[in-house]
């Protein structure tokens, strides 16, 4: 072996190391094999005999969420939402009230003697569309699931909705993924979302910034993927419709940890920022922002989306985010009958989870699982005709913590949105925007460009109907 060969040896070894490194980094160093199979639970898998006896198609319900990746910590919350709906509406009993993973037994279609078989080889994704898709395929094609509840995050939802088109006999209900395209653009006839999308969660924010805080120009900062695009689209559309200007839209890569240079770049001569840096990034961004600008620098200057109003994030950031105004699909301070009924249902099934009532991850799975049960009830537990079941599902009205929710023609929820202020208790609702639909007062349709780095454009005129009533 001569010296030249040696050099090539080291060179290729170096490249090999880099490739391994990239793979390790891409997988967050934790690309362990799917733990779904390992998550065996003692739930009811053999209860479907009664259905088979009636000669009808067995009802097998599957669950797809994130047990790894940036949203992995919300795995239990999503399971709790899913099973709480089954306990409340399908008469199931939790196996272990302290642990949602243990599953439930005895789920029946209400008003019938048809059992719902719950598949407990849960779909475990990691925030990546390909993983969600392969898990959805596994559940549908190998496990024989004919109703699937999930997935959790933006790009995953788009992928699963597209897959739904190839499986017309299977009915898909979203978990809590919030990209606009999932329902507005993909329009799979068998994909339902009984929870609003990310843009709907910002209804009222743009008008609050323009009319109440007096912002005239703003800069947006969000992770570079479909969910923050959707949230930013809602804010931009409403703020610009009133005459506001967006000076710049900044998109750090998802998973960035050092935001200091992005923060240095933020212009001084701007009235405020719309912040939609998500998950762990929120904590880092806010810490680095306050490091340079002072502990109370966010108040009046920064508005946020779903991340900054999340109870877990608020707990981590403390007083730094006190007074920050954000859009939220849920009012953590509500005390009315709807909210009480919803949180009591969680308490009855999983007492330790009641603190997560205002966690959208729990609520999204709760809404969609409930819709599936009520849809089954509407067809008397007979899903032989998938199209009839789906038609019934489209007409279901579910009971949620924020009141009754229905879906529109694209099978996406229409419901209220809350503009909240972060305070020492969590959040305080400033005002509610009722009946927000996915078109966002006419701004979005199947023909408008997909929300992305540059879209929607900032155009004045045609403000959404609720904007005029939001004043000082």
């Amino acid at each position, binding site marked *: 072996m*001569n*010296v*030249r060969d*040696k*050099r090539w040896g*080291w*060179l290729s070894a*170096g490249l090999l*190391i*880099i490739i*391994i*490194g990239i793979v*390790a*980094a*891409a*997988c*967050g*160093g*934790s*690309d*362990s094999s799917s733990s779904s199979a390992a998550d065996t639970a003692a739930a009811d898998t053999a209860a479907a005999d009664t259905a088979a006896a009636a000669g009808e198609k067995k009802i097998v319900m599957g669950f797809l969420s994130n047990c*790894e990746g*940036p*949203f*992995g*910590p919300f795995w239990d919350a999503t399971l709790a939402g899913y099973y709480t709906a089954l306990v409340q509406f399908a008469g199931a009993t939790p196996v272990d009230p302290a642990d949602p993973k243990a599953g439930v037994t005895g789920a029946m279609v209400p008003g019938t003697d048809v059992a719902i078989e719950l598949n407990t080889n849960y779909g475990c994704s990691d925030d990546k569309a390909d993983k969600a898709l392969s898990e959805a395929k596994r559940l549908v094609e190998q496990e024989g699931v004919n109703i699937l509840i999930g997935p959790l995050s933006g790009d995953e939802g788009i992928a699963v909705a597209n897959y739904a088109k190839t499986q017309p006999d299977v009915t898909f209900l979203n978990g809590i993924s919030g990209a606009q395209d999932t329902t507005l653009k993909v329009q799979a006839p068998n994909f339902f979302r009984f929870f609003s999308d990310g843009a709907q969660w910002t209804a009222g924010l743009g008008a609050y910034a323009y009319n109440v805080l007096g912002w005239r120009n703003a800069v947006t900062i969000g992770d*570079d993927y479909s969910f923050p695009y959707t949230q930013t689209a809602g804010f931009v559309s409403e703020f610009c419709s009133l005459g506001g200007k967006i000076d*710049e839209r*900044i*998109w*750090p*890569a998802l*998973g960035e*940890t*050092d935001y*200091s*240079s*992005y923060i*240095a*770049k933020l212009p001084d001569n701007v009235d405020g920022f719309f912040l939609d840096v998500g*998950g*762990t*990034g929120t*904590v*880092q961004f806010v*810490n*680095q922002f*306050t*490091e*340079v*600008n*002072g*502990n109370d620098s966010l108040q009046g200057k920064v508005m946020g989306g779903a991340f900054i109003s999340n109870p*877990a*994030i608020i707990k*981590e950031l*403390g*007083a730094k985010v006190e007074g920050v105004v954000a859009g939220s699909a849920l009012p953590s301070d509500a005390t009315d009958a709807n909210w009480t009924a919803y949180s009591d249902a969680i308490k009855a099934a999983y007492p330790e989870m009641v603190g997560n009532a205002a966690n959208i991850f729990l609520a999204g799975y709760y809404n969609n699982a409930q819709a599936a049960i009520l849809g089954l009830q509407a067809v008397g537990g007979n899903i032989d005709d998938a199209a009839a079941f789906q038609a019934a599902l489209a007409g279901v009205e579910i009971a949620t913590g924020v009141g009754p929710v229905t879906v529109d023609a694209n099978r996406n929820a229409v419901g209220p949105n809350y503009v909240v202020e972060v305070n*020492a208790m969590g959040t305080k609702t400033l005002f509610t925007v009722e009946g927000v639909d996915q078109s966002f007062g006419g701004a979005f349709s199947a023909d408008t460009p997909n929300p992305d*780095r540059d879209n929607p454009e900032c155009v004045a005129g045609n403000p959404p109907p609720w904007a005029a009533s939001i004043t000082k």
Partner: protein
Amino acid sequence: MASGVDSTVGGLNGVMARAPWRAGSIFLLAILGLSLLGIGIQAASDPTLFAQITLNGLTLAGLYFIVASGFTLIFGLMRVVNMAHGSFYMLGGIIAYLVQERMLNPDPTSFALPEATVTSFVVPLVVSMLSIALLGVVIQQVFLRWNQGQELRQALITIAISIIIADQAVAHFGGIAKEISVPVRKSIELPIVGMFGTMRLVMLLVAILVGVGLLLIISRTRFGMIVRAGVDDRHMVSALGVNIQRVFAAAFFLGALLAGLAGVLGGAVNSVNKSDDGKFLLISLVIVIVGGMGSLTGAAVGAVLLGLIDSYSDVYLPDAVTNYGVLLTFFLLVFVLAVRPYGLFGRAA
């Protein structure tokens, strides 16, 4: 060194192999020149911003250096590609956070986070560094020692360890980023730069101290002498009667200790984040390959290059492509490998 290699091989093959390298180098140099020109023009238009992000880049480089110096020490001496190095970094932050949480005992009903005192910062720092160092030695003794010289096997073992650590971390620590509280004022006013994070400056200072300390250890102590000799020829050192196993254990102790230190500093400046393990492993690999295996100066230069690229690309790339800033890191890698296959300060094995 590289030209020496070529001349020994000589002949037509050598000439033919070198020609494309030259064309590639010229191309890459042209790109480098253009980017420097671009940065220069931007810098002239807003010197304050330039000063801020340069300091951001340098302080970040400090953190990178502390992590990578431990990695290069282990890599250079033992030829162990420690794929669990990023996990050491992440665990360092987690342990310090958990110890500090116990010490500060935050009131769960209170909204304000307690401020750390010097003690409640230094104790978690030391506990965390020592725990990680011990963990490093245990891993080296239990898993790697009997696989000496089997580089691929060692790499695979450490990958397995890093996966186990990552999954355990998310199970027991959760995925929400946490911040380690520090006893200093958050920011200070600097000339030209304006307000700047105090802990970032502290981090840079610590990195410089670590660098100087390591240089002194390597150049002035018996341990350092053995390490230097070991980097060049392990077998000869062993044959001369040095207990190379003890030196290996010490190197692992020191390398892991540094990763733990960096984890705590990173946790105080950015946050303790479950997904940092993969990121910092990759950064260490890139720095070591750019700087040259086992070279401390190389690690410092590599860290500075990476830190500055990271910082400048966030700001000076057009908004549409800032996301791809990380690619520039790999252009740097390709460039260095093309021009100097052993890294900027590396030598042939």
